[in-house]
């Protein structure tokens, strides 16, 4: 057992380029702990989750206790510890979207994908989550994918279109206006 533990310790989660990326943030702040959130984002972007081992390595780089990283990480309901799908999509359920049908669109998308909010489709392509106001209420009822694409105003038909588009995977660049809905 002890030998095993040493073995996993010797193969770090974070590669040198990722560590370099994290270290590049250190000069921006008066102390290293402030790099926690940027580091979590870097790790999350790479692994699509923040594994426990990576959290320990972040702590080493920032010279803080792993518990401090965990404390911060767990406060935000943002960093899952098992990988999410290729695209993460949030459908808004706050006031303006709720009034214009957001809850129905969320239910529609869940049904269509066969998941409940917070789950990933079995093929690993899409993670569907509800969100509180996404700040795109001009397109309410609206959705946002984690590659920056905006969808809205959604109807059952455009929600279906959105799902089809999301199944193609993330994109590198997108316009600041919705890719589906009102352009």
């Amino acid at each position, binding site marked *: 057992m002890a030998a095993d533990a040493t073995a996993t310790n010797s193969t770090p989660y974070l590669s040198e380029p990722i560590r370099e990326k994290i270290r590049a943030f250190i000069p921006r702040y008066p102390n290293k702990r402030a790099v*926690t959130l940027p580091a979590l984002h870097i790790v999350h972007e790479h692994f699509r989750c923040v594994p426990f081992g990576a959290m320990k390595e972040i702590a080493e780089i920032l010279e803080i206790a792993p518990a401090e990283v965990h404390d911060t990480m767990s*406060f935000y309901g943002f960093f899952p510890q098992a990988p999410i799908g290729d695209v993460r999509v949030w459908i808004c359920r706050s006031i303006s979207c*709720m009034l214009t049908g957001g809850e129905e669109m969320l239910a529609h998308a869940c049904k269509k994908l066969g998941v409940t909010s917070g789950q990933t489709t079995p093929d690993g392509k899409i993670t569907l989550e509800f969100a509180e106001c996404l700040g795109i*209420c*001009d397109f*309410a009822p609206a959705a946002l994918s984690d590659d920056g694409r905006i969808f809205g105003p959604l109807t059952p038909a455009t929600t279906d279109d959105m799902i089809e588009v999301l199944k193609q995977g993330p994109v590198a660049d*997108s316009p600041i206006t919705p890719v589906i809905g009102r352009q």
Partner: protein
Amino acid sequence: MAAFEPVLSRNWNVPDSHTLPVYESRGGYKASRKALTEMDPDKVVQVVKDSELRGRGGAGFPTGLKWSFLPKDRTQTFMCVNGDESEPATFNNRLLIERDPHQFIEGILIACFATKAATAYVYLRFEYIHAFRIMERAIADAREKGHLGKDIYGSGFDLEVYCHRGAGAYICGEETGLIESLEGKRGWPRIKPPFPAIEGAFRKPTVVNNVETLACVPHIIERGADWFKSIGTPKSYGPKLYCISGHVNKQVCVELPLGVTTNQLIEEHAGGVWKGRKAKAAVPGGISMGLLSAAEFDVPLDFEEIRKPGCLGLGTAAVTVMDETTSMVDYLYNSCRFFAHESCGQCTPCREGTGWLYKMMKRIKAGGGRLEDLDIMDNLAKNMGIMPGTTICGLADGAAWPVRNALAKFRGEIEDYIKTHQAPRYQVTPLQQAIAHGQSPVGSDTPMPDPTRRLPGPDLSTRATAHA
């Protein structure tokens, strides 16, 4: 009054408005040059003070005054720009950053010069993915052209601006929650005092300002305090970006003088209420600010007047319109759910209060409401927040206000809902009834209690409250 000329949004429809050459060609970075080369920091603070600019982030605190609270003998100052914009129905900061990032950077530059801050952190909510990309590029471009970096315009003033991305927590918009989050901790608001101006980020004097507040600053420097005060209503000067969404034909963000009315916003800018319907109510400035009934739609939306119909404040000036078919139960349910989800959990009255409010609304909506619930909710709402003095931050006040306003303005409707929506699964059984009365259930044939009758227990509606 002269025709209103938009300034904050004047570049929004210009092609490539987010690029530095376009911004410079339209007179950009003139005000910052003027401030840094012709004025001293105290003079800039004085001009902003004279303009009576009030913070656009929610609380409406006078910006110049906030800057003057910084200790005179400080050696280091931080600027934190609040771009967490998570108040439901608000999206003007997003547009300001995406459409005109350099106006924003110019505002940061002048504000940092005035407050002697050499580092500015722009706290951006994670969901503003485009805004983040655009800001990163704009900062790099501005730096290359000498608007940021060392010895800007030969004035000897240095400034670095960094974007710091949030991770989906509403509470990180509260200024000390933001600072904690920036420091790499959980976004738990701090007990004040000390206020950030004395001890903020990294325990140094810190200014926290909203994106829109800082976007106003270059225009004040360029056109003067008197120009700014020629716009708006008394104690609420200047232009404001109003967001309108919900049951309207056109969901938009428009720049108008402070003090327009909800009616004007709906009719003149949002194309009227959708589907030819009539409006029933509106959220005046983000969901925390409470509720306006349609009869109150001619109240000016500024920092002062909006308090008269009982709203908490102007907030973010984000109006959500609800049409005549909207159930106030749905509205309250949505609001209570939001705050229960976003409470950071530090203060018991907020953590438990928002949770209870949500559970009660959930039960009422599902057909298990009792009229006395409304008294309990009202009581709860009156006792949570910084106003009754029971919590650390204003989230709890924001959670309480929709409840208080809805109960004051639409209680009849909610009572009717409770009376007409009674689901069998929520009915108190004869057994439960007997137990509650301390009777033996054997042989009890107590009828089903009707929702208007109180259940046994203390009468909360008559209990004295800290703040009635």
